């Protein structure tokens, strides 16, 4: 069977994507820019901007000088590749073999597919109109070779469908850039006056190779169909979903547990085979009465361990209401990540934050007490006591700074400082006695003051002068005076913590 290829060109791929998100950008000059050597350089401009002379590679300041209405946004690295991948996966509805042609195109192997749409013309029209409806500027061409389809999609001026054997005639009038050449080679060809492919197509390949390198004759052969060009088709990732239909509706907790076990066995086998682990999963039960019950779990580390996941779901089983019975279970892994391969049996006894037993314990505790219930602290670069530590984002996050131990700190800190009555000599001496919850504490020993300034850029208020004091019974407290001595000096003393 003769081969047929389609090439799709997304002329304004990333700007189109921005315009889809923000429709107002479609009618105004808009460009994306990225920093190059300290200057913002335009990486892509939309059709309106291009019509007014804004081109790729221009400095943003220059473009703004002659087009002050130009809207500029930062380029997101990797966006184009991601978009192409998504669009490629979408195109699998037209052919099973879709390949990405970076930076801005797709290649479809449509051999034997087009007749399903009633011919290549209708096929092409369908693809283009659907993509245009989504908001993308596209050009598409169909030919017997990838090279020709690519060239016609970008540079063709006549018919977008090229019959097999007609490649040479079509390529004849196109510029050399249509052969997917390096810019240096194209520039050299232009310098020598070879402005169309036809002007050098019939030159002996040895001459071309000597002058322009191996690339030019190879691309020419590929475009004319004299050399095969392999494509790497996209493989869609099948979603991590498992279904378990039941002959008889399930109504008991034991039955639900068996169903979970069966589903997990299949899903975890696939996950561990792919080196992946599960971070979040949901179990949906379709009931006989047409209602749907759902429970979800999350894990703190990617895992594919069946006993652990069974335990986590086991905690949720009481929340599943089977009513008249559940006839279909669907288990979906909504969060899947690469898992570290662990030798659980061999190193099971190791202690530490990297131990596998710890995340499993935390998952079980979180499953019952809530996700926010378990946390770790890391030091933070603040002197203000309440802000001197922060919650860690993960179990294995390492501290970026060391814990400070140069100043004495109380082991117990009141969440909110409590007001106390104090007798203290002015101006800066520690108190002689204080009254807290109706009890008078005569102070025998004291250290301080240690002034801690409030971070005014974070919250307004007074600084604190901290004193570490010990009363006659040896009980040690952390007191502070908010701000300087003022008129209502009785109200500005607080107890903040208890020392060991």
């Amino acid at each position: 069977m003769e081969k047929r290829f389609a090439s799709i060109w997304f002329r304004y791929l990333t700007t189109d994507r921005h315009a889809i998100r923000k429709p107002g950008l479609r009618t105004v000059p808009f460009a994306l820019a990225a920093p190059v050597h300290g200057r913002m350089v335009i990486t892509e401009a939309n059709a309106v901007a291009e019509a007014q002379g804004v081109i790729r590679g221009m400095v943003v300041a220059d473009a703004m000088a002659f087009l002050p209405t130009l809207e500029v946004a930062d380029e997101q690295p990797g966006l184009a590749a991601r978009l192409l991948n998504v669009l490629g996966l979408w195109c699998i509805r037209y052919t099973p073999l879709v390949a990405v042609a970076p930076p801005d195109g797709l290649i479809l192997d449509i051999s034997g597919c087009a007749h399903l749409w009633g011919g290549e013309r209708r096929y092409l029209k369908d693809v283009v109109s659907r993509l245009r409806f989504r908001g993308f500027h596209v050009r598409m061409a169909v030919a017997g070779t990838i090279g020709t389809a690519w060239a016609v999609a970008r540079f063709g001026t006549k018919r977008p469908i090229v019959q097999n054997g007609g490649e040479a005639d079509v390529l004849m009038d196109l510029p050399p850039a249509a052969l997917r050449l390096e810019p240096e080679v194209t520039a050299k060809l232009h310098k020598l006056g070879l402005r169309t492919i036809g002007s050098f197509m019939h030159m002996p390949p040895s001459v071309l190779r000597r002058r322009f390198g191996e690339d030019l004759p190879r691309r020419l052969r590929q475009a004319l169909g004299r050399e095969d060009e392999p494509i790497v088709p996209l493989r869609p990732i099948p979603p991590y979903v498992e279904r378990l239909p039941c002959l008889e509706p399930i109504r008991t907790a034991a039955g639900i547990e068996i169903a979970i076990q069966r589903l997990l066995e299949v899903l975890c086998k696939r996950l561990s085979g792919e080196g992946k682990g599960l971070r979040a999963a949901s179990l949906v039960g379709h009931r006989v009465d047409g209602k749907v019950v759902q429970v979800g779990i999350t894990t703190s580390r990617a895992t594919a361990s069946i006993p652990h996941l069974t335990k986590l779901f086991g905690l949720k089983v009481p929340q599943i209401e089977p009513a008249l019975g559940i006839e279909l279970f669907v288990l979906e892994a909504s969060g899947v990540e690469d898992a570290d391969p662990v030798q659980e049996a061999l190193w099971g006894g190791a202690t530490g934050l990297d131990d596998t037993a710890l995340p499993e314990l935390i998952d079980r505790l979180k499953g019952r007490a809530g996700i926010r219930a378990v946390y770790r602290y890391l030091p933070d670069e603040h002197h203000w006591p309440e802000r001197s530590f922060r919650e860690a984002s993960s179990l294995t996050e390492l501290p970026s700074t060391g814990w400070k131990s140069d100043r004495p700190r109380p082991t117990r800190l009141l969440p909110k400082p409590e007001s106390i009555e104090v007798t203290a000599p002015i101006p800066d001496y520690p108190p002689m006695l204080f009254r807290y919850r109706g009890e008078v504490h005569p102070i025998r020993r004291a250290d301080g003051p240690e002034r801690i300034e409030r971070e005014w850029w974070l919250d307004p208020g007074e600084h604190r002068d901290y004193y570490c004091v010990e009363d006659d019974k040896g009980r040690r407290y952390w007191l502070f005076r908010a701000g300087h001595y003022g008129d209502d000096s009785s109200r500005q003393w607080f107890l903040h913590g208890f020392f060991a």
Partner: protein
Amino acid sequence: MMAASENTREIVNRLKQDILRLQGVIPPDSPATRIGLGPVEKAFPHGAFPSFGVHEFICRCREESAATSGFMGGLLGKLMAGGGVCFWISTSRMLFPPSLVTFGVQPDRVVFMEVARERDVLWAAEEALKCNGLAAVVAELRDMDFAQSRRLQLAVEKSRVTGLMLRSNPRIVGATACAARWRIAPLPSLPADGLPGVGFPRWEVELLKVRNGNPGCWQLEWAEGRFVPMVRRISQASSRMKKIS
């Protein structure tokens, strides 16, 4: 006569060892596992701190729970020395994590858990004590009856994790299955050479109950990263103990 009494003492010692073995008290593997409590450790069976047991700390006020937290920090510093992880379960966020550095604990190696109800503290503590990837579990709770403490102690015996229960203002201090019951009270500090200011933390450490051991009362100071026993008071305590016996 003398030889006979020597003989009797030997027999009694051997019988004591047998009773301990029958009661399931495991002798410590090596002297390196000592926790550094000095004379306090002699009160325990085999003269070593029972790391594989549940310890109960009674606190009557906030000052005492602060002192107990400090003392526990000292114990945790030793228990977590090999890169271990500690679990701290409570119903409120009262502990000030940076203060643990003073007692030799890296606060980032402590995993905290906050639950709403006392009942969940016990459940979480039991789950955590069953996990042998941990070095120690601290739980702050108020009341614990015999059955609950027995569950914890059984979990510990299987997983060999140290359990420290901080009981503040308990309503009833009844019998429990714990290895020891402590009470830590703050004492006035004594800065060296009569310097002004507050000195090192100093506590009165009271062992109210010890399974297969002798209760007692000691004075300890936390100085330069270790427990320092106060020598003068120990002799008093031991003499008092003699008087009691």
